[in-house]
């Protein structure tokens, strides 16, 4: 996983609540057995006018000119500004994989669905929860100012605007530590193997039926 320390990025505003994981990456693209290559199909049904198929050259497809990411001013955006309950629906990790493959490293919203929120951290994407009124303010600024950028400073846990305003955000210490250092949490858990073995022995004694003989 790539480290996330500081990001200076263009902001794309997605002004719609309850964006679900089927919208982020429709099911026909979940058939891949890889983790990469989902970017061209991010928000497929909103982004293109035709029905997307796996293994298709999406650059030739008719684009929906009204969709935010199809507007030239948002080309190259790496920060997605979103509304409440972003990422609701399925547990598909293909959703953060698609965001990452497209180039997003940070999503800002008033709230996220739990599984999606957790999946982001596993892939080097920082989801930031801010008060609805603050997010609303950012939407207004992003709409009025072409080329609107934000600096996301994970070390300092703050967002800085180009005008020098700073907005503090909160993030779990463990997840922040993993993102800042690009750590693989399986490796970290395995460092506690002794504790797992000890628990397992106790658990087996109390609930032997959970340990089938192979």
């Amino acid at each position, binding site marked *: 996983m790539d480290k996330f320390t500081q990001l200076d990025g263009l902001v794309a505003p997605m002004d719609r609540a309850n964006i679900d994981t089927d919208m982020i990456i429709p099911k026909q693209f979940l058939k891949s057995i890889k983790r990469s290559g989902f970017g061209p199909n991010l928000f497929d049904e909103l982004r293109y006018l035709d029905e997307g198929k796996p293994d298709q050259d999406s650059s030739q497809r008719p684009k929906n000119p009204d969709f935010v990411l199809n507007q030239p001013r948002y080309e190259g955006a790496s920060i997605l500004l979103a509304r409440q309950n972003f990422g609701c629906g399925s*547990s598909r990790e293909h959703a953060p994989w698609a965001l990452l493959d497209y180039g997003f490293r940070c999503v800002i919203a008033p709230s996220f669905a739990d599984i999606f929120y957790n999946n982001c951290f596993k892939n080097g994407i920082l989801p930031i929860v801010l008060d609805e009124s603050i997010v609303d303010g950012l939407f207004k600024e992003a709409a009025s100012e072409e080329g609107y950028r934000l600096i996301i400073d994970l070390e300092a846990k703050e967002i800085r605007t180009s005008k020098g305003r700073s907005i503090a955000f909160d993030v779990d210490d463990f997840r922040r530590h993993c993102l800042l250092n690009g750590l693989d949490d399986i490796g970290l858990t395995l460092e506690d193997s002794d504790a797992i073995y000890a628990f397992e022995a106790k658990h087996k004694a109390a609930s032997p039926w959970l340990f*089938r003989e192979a």
Partner: protein
Amino acid sequence: MAGKTLYDKLWDNHLVQQRDDGTSLIYIDRQLLHEVTSPQAFEGLRLAGRKPWRLDTNLATPDHNVPTTLKERNEGNDGIKDPVSKIQVVTLDDNCDDFGITEFKINDIRQGIVHVVGPEQGATLPGMTLVCGDSHTATHGAFGALAHGIGTSEVEHVMATQCLIQRKMRNMLVKVNGKLAAGVTGKDIVLAVIGKIGTAGGNGCAIEFGGEAIQSLSMEGRMTICNMAIEAGARVGLVAVDQTTIDYVKGRPFAPSEAQWEQAVAAWQDLHSDVDAEFDVVVELDAADIEPQVTWGNSPEMVLPVSGIVPNPAEQAEEDQQKAYARALEYMGLQAGQSITDIKLDSVFIGSCTNSRIEDLREAAAVAKGKKVAANVKQALVVPGSGLVKQQAEKEGLDKIFVEAGFEWREPGCSMCLAMNADKLGAGEHCASTSNRNFEGRQGFGGRTHLVSPGMAAAAAVAGHFVDVRDVLQAS
């Protein structure tokens, strides 16, 4: 000190390590695997040179991509015509063979939707922790098990370490008091709950469903309710263990052996919230107020009783809601003020991890018996949740009732719930579906999904539009 909730007890019983940073290491007793969210996890293990911590906790079956037509199914994996889908199923087979994981392959009678197979096999047990790379893993909480969906990175984490790094959720109680009217089911309860608290209402919470109406339900009904906890934003749904739970589990292949049965049952007696347990959030509903439910929009919270009228976006209080409602009406091709019963249907789907168990099929068959699917309904599918559900239904003659009424009787799988196989809804078509999500494009590009119970779906198939299943049941 206040007593513990069921969730607190399950958490405490699986706590390996509490860390200073507020996270905890939680031990996982069972992992269910399917073809869509596991290939990258197996690849991750291989790349890191890691082995599964315990093989016997894993159980796999392909479900999302499998064809449901008999001819294709008889060809095994070769019957999967979409080459990309086929690779995914073959990859699951190869991974399970390589690592030595038990798998019910495509033509095993025990194959089916993971969330039907686990309970049916007794692989889902009271008091255990259970995960799967699928958000509808909440289903298994009906057994008083701590069960939730996880992403692929966590699938790999559980295989490699038998643990998950977690933060404790908040406790929420949804209490459904009183008795349900005849013809009103677990599906209607959970849709009514989502309508009340919204799709984000349970975010960050484990929801325990309690009250007389829940206690009176069969295991199938409880599974339907827990299955859709995620549609209320909660990763975990729970129901306390009682005699109904224990009777269901007894004698199943993966259930405790005879020698351990009494010991297990004794331990399971504690799997309920203490009377003095405190919940962070409590929501109460009266079962008598719940009518059969129908969703009209593109979020499960956009739901109404069958007697309802499609809402007017302009009359909504919040601007966000006005926009969302207007967009939903446009996508769904509905008019504000239209009666739910005036919605005509092109398709009916009875199946999915929400409603494809034997009781669901009995409920639909009771409505369809001796009747015919309406002419305007182009396709009416019945897709059993597993090979064993199919076998049982055929033993009871349910397949004949469906086929005589004009339904197609299919092979088990996820099918048109999310249309990853060949079963798809056409653009603009309205479908009465017993599945769990009515998101845009969920059942097929441009498809229009209405979520209902199995009885309501069968009644709609016969009438060609939505009707109150209670009227149909009374008339017959």
